[in-house]
């Protein structure tokens, strides 16, 4: 009996029997395209004509000088179509769906970013599309819901559990077990049952491949450190893969420290002490769960990091010490965001800003002849409701109050 899709002791495919054949089919299709160089070519070509790949690597001269240490480079996934690295994975899976001949895609979404990306891909490929999104998130992220609907997708608010990302994942699986023949589940991050972690990591590896070439061109040598925020872990795995086999490059994953690692209100699985090994949502990893194995509520100012599990691949790299983990608190994130906007004219997503926080903490202690790369997974202007709220901006509040009053009357 084959036990596949493990990274050390992490991963696997804990799936209901009814999906067994679907996964066989998916594994076969994925295995085939993965070894077919023309598929990767097709993927790269799609991403360079429909999205904006290669995304640039931006030298952040002002920030570098501000901290006075390592030269800071920013990998600009925010410039992807739909505004985040999520597009890489989604467009890749879209190509696979076309190959498999399926007619419909479903996806979970938390922040809404993956939902918008999936709805976009579905429109582009002419697929029917349903997005599951926790009811809480639907309320918090209405702009993204609006776009998903306008792109032709059906958005289903999920009312079970904590009404957030993990519940949306459960609900997507419930759809899939009902209608697997014509439907593909576009998992949004490097989590879930095998082959999803492998597949998502593969598509996202385009980030690291590019970043490696770019830093060699622009800086002449490898960076000393690479930082990425970690929700499910897809943007981190994406960029890390460009440097995994270079021992001199330190890789740092930054999780949501929320209100502090001791507050119980965070989403730090690997940087904190609150997580333990578990099996849920189809895979084995470190989960934020209680002693009975019930998943706990998590918190982050960044909806996209607010998740109980984490990529099994990253958990393995954490265990082996290859990737170091840190956490950034909500407050630190708002400060780093402010600094980045003012110094570089760049607005990272709240998720991405977590990576900036840790890089900022360390840059000053590094040498000026070293480089570090921050993976900017997405752009922050999608988050205006959250960001303006977090900055407690009075004019924004007045604007919304007035708009609200107009609509109410």
């Amino acid at each position, binding site marked *: 009996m084959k036990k596949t899709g493990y990274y050390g002791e992490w991963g696997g495919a*804990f*799936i209901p*029997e009814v999906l067994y054949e679907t996964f066989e089919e998916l594994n076969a299709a994925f295995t085939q395209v993965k070894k077919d160089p023309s598929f990767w070519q097709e993927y790269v070509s799609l991403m360079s004509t429909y999205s904006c790949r290669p995304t640039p690597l931006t030298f952040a001269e002002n920030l570098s000088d501000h901290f006075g240490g390592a030269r800071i480079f920013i990998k600009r996934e925010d410039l992807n179509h739909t505004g985040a690295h999520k597009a890489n994975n989604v467009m890749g899976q879209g190509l696979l769906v076309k190959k498999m001949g399926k007619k419909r895609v479903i996806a979970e979404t938390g922040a809404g970013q993956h939902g918008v990306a999936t709805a976009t891909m579905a429109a582009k490929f002419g697929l029917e599309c349903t997005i599951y999104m926790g009811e809480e998130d639907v309320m918090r992220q209405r702009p993204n819901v609006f776009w998903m609907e306008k792109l032709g997708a059906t958005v289903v608010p999920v009312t079970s559990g904590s009404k957030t990302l993990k519940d949306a994942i459960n609900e997507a699986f*419930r759809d899939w077990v009902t209608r697997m023949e014509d439907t593909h589940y576009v998992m949004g991050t490097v989590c879930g049952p095998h082959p999803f972690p492998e597949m998502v990591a593969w598509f996202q590896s385009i980030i690291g491949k590019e970043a490696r070439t770019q830093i060699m061109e622009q800086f002449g040598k490898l960076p000393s450190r690479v930082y990425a925020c970690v929700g499910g872990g897809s943007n981190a795995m994406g960029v890390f893969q460009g440097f995994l086999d270079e021992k001199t490059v330190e890789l740092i994953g930054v999780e949501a420290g929320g209100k502090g690692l001791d507050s119980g209100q965070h989403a730090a699985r690997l940087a904190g002490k609150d997580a333990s090994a578990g099996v849920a949502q*189809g895979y084995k990893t470190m989960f934020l769960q209680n002693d009975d*194995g*019930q*998943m706990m509520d998590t918190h982050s100012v960044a909806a996209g990091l607010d998740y109980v599990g984490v990529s099994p691949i990253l958990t393995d790299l954490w265990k082996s010490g290859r990737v170091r983990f840190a956490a950034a608190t909500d407050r630190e994130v708002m400060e780093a965001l402010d600094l980045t906007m003012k110094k570089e004219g760049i607005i990272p997503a709240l998720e991405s800003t977590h990576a900036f926080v840790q890089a900022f903490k360390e840059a000053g202690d590094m040498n000026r002849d070293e480089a570090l790369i921050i993976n900017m997974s997405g752009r922050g202007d999608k988050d205006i409701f959250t960001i303006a709220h977090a900055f407690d901006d009075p004019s924004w509040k007045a604007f919304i109050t007035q708009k609200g009053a107009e609509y109410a009357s």
Partner: protein
Amino acid sequence: MHLNSQIETALADPDKKILLMTHIVLGYPSLEVNRQVIKQMVENGVDLIEMQIPFSEPMADGPVIVKANQDAIENGITVKECLEFAREMTETHSIPFLFMTYYNILFKYGVEDFFKKAKDMGITGFIIPDLPPEEGEEFFKLTDKYEIAPIMIYAPTSTAERMQELAKYGGGFIYCVARKGVTGQQTDFDEEFDAYIKKCRDNAKLPLAVGFGISSKADVDYLTERADIAVIGTKTIKLVESEGVEAVGPFIAGLR
């Protein structure tokens, strides 16, 4: 006693053309109500009961059972309480009791510890919908040792080959999921279903249980002679919600 022989015995009863298995979500709405419901079930002829230990991520369940899981957890049910309740039930009633739950509950408890404890409590079978044999190395090593039957699940999407593979691991009976989807929706009993059950029968030595969407005497009648066990899940939860505990007895009595 082994679940296999418990079932054999039950099936030997000439009055029973089909056995009935019911589903309970522990702690929903409370263990006290569970207790009363189980009593009614047993007194009215239920042959096996699967008790679901709530899990926060019940991926394979439909809305009614999902909500039951969630409410039970919110009301504070613990795995420990579930285990103790199981002991009380197996001591009170002589029919076989099984645990249905998701793998994380075992994993987090410690798989072998959980087996040991469940065995102590008189549980004779486990239904773990998110544990395919490929992932069950540790689990399947323990089923014999603790004499707890691992209930394997067949689905309408399973090939004959896959069924035979699954059969190698199974004990007690085979749980044939009547249709695609999650618990709690209606199933159409049609030719396709018949072909599916025939395929299950052809590829299993153990008795066949059929679940998902069984909610009436008509359903049970249809299954009689086709399957060995009819599984009533969501229906009784909804019944207790809408008509109270007392409705369970008559409902069960009227099924067969």
